[in-house]
């Protein structure tokens, strides 16, 4: 397999942009109509994801250390969509037809061989990883909603009980699918450390015009059924670190950080934790009552709410970045940040400009499962 030839071939094809995945999926659905129902009605987001994944695979083709874990993750993750080993050759055939179609006269027998070889390896890593996962985990976890609190106009807190134990590390998230929006999965972070009864909390914020969050927050009732994918994500509390902890949460970005606080409470010697919980207005600090209760119970925990757009608010005003910069000494601290991309970027920039080393800052990163 000539890796350079493969990369050149891909960049030629990828220049056609959205046309490429559009052709691929139409080709796949025509040759195997039975797989259509594994996908949502609107395919726009799906096409972006396919092109991104292919781009990542091709650009990492020479560095196996990066590629193999990524492919293994993809393989495991595809189990929840109902992907079986027998689907892989069908996908390979449509992929090759698509590449050939867009390559035009530049498609040669050598290229066909290169791509076939590459896809065979990709499919092998993915299917083997999926098969290994079958021994320990179901393709997805069924779960029942057992509690539901609508905290603000936008934020609902769900408590769900998975049918069987779902082991995870605080800071991780799972893809969630609800009956009202089949085949559309969205990631939500577990908002609590694992409990003895196995229940999990999710903080769901309605995104205006979002196709899933609205359904999650409004159409779900106690008793509704959900499907949860395997836990993913790299954000986790570094319990071996000698430093104390700053947590910066923007709105429902609080969820994984709250789980990490609960985890710290279980440690024999918890670090000092200072949580700055930010929102636009005081009414949007949807979980403050609970957090303050935790702070009273655990002397090592400090909670500072930050309100950015409410001139009448009497507490700390400003963004999470403002309040951390103003209130929290940064020396000898690790920082964990989670929230909107804008909030995370702004806060990370502020911490770095105040001299915090990059490797003491952890941010929520969905990695390959970004959506």
């Amino acid at each position, binding site marked *: 397999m000539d890796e350079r030839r493969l990369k050149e071939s891909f960049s030629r094809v990828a220049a056609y942009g959205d046309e490429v995945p*559009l*052709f691929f*999926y*139409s*080709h796949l*659905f*025509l*040759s195997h109509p039975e797989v259509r129902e594994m996908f949502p*009605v*609107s*395919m*726009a987001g799906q096409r972006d994801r396919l092109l991104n994944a292919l781009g990542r695979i091709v650009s990492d083709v020479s560095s196996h250390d990066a590629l193999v874990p990524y492919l293994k993750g993809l393989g495991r993750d595809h189990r929840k969509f109902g992907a079986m080993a027998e689907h892989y*050759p069908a996908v*390979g*055939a*449509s992929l*090759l*037809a698509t590449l*050939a*179609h867009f390559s*035009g*006269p530049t*498609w040669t*027998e050598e290229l*066909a*061989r290169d791509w*076939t*070889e590459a*896809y*065979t390896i990709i499919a092998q890593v993915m299917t083997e990883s999926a098969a290994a996962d079958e021994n320990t985990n179901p393709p997805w976890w069924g779960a029942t909603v057992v509690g539901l609190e609508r905290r603000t*106009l936008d934020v609902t807190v769900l408590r769900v009980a998975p049918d069987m134990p779902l082991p995870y590390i605080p800071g991780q998230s799972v893809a969630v699918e609800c009956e009202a929006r089949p085949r559309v999965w969205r990631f939500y972070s577990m908002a609590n450390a694992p409990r003895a009864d196995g229940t999990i909390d999710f903080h769901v914020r*309605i995104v*205006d*015009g*979002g*196709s899933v969050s*609205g359904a999650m927050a409004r159409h779900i009732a106690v008793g509704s059924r959900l499907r949860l994918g395997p836990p993913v994500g790299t954000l986790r509390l570094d319990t071996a670190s000698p430093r104390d902890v700053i947590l910066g949460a923007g709105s429902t970005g609080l969820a994984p950080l709250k789980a990490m606080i609960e985890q710290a409470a279980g440690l024999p010697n918890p670090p000092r934790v200072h949580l700055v919980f930010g929102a636009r207005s005081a009414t949007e600090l949807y979980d403050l009552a609970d957090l303050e209760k935790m702070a009273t119970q655990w002397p090592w925990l400090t909670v500072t709410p930050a309100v950015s757009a409410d001139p*009448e608010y009497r507490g700390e005003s400003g963004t999470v970045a403002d309040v951390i910069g103003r209130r929290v000494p940064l020396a000898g601290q690790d920082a964990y940040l989670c929230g909107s991309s804008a909030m995370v970027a702004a806060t990370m920039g502020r911490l770095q400009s105040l001299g915090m080393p990059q490797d003491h800052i952890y941010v929520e990163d969905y990695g390959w499962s970004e959506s």
Partner: protein
Amino acid sequence: MTRANSQQLTPERVRSAAFSPARLGRRGLDEAQVHTFCEWVSDELARTLNENTMLQEEVLRLRDRLLKGRGNSGIQPEDGHVQAVYVLSKAQQTADRYVADAQNYSREIAEDAHKRHDDILREAKVRASMILEEAHASASRAARTVPETQEPLPAAERQELEAEIAYLRTFSDVCRTHLRAYMDSLSRSIAEWERAEQDAATAARESRLQPSQQALSRRFHVVVDSGRRK
């Protein structure tokens, strides 16, 4: 310059096109000649574009055949016909657009609702403090106007009480009146908003459904008519 039907239009011919001067008494070139030439150029261009499309289709067809002929490369590119792939792609894009439109519409409505929610809250806060201030002012005035009596101490006490009663009564009256007026205006504006939203939704639905409904009813009439004729 005349149109030479038997000859091909070439870039060279366009560049070297020459027109006679207009007849005596008119300025410029001979209009009829220029017009004829432009028609020729336009016809030739249309023919070339058509030919181009046909050639492209031919290229796709040949490329497909070439790929099918190959096939020794492990995975067979099973070819769903390229035309069918394009048709399905078009359908998918249409579906995607409808979903995106619906999402945009719902986002606009939700953003509007948020804005109104914020506006109403802000206005309510301002109103509430105005109502309180005004009630306080009127009540103070009412308390001051309680007539002084000549009676000694116990009466002074009584007077003080009366003043306080007058204050409280006026305070609550003013608050009640203002609040009622405010609540009325609030529910009126919510009703208006709901009506506007329903109108918009109905209009959107009708504009989408009408053509197909009309077609349906037309077909229905035809069936009824033919039935009657029997």
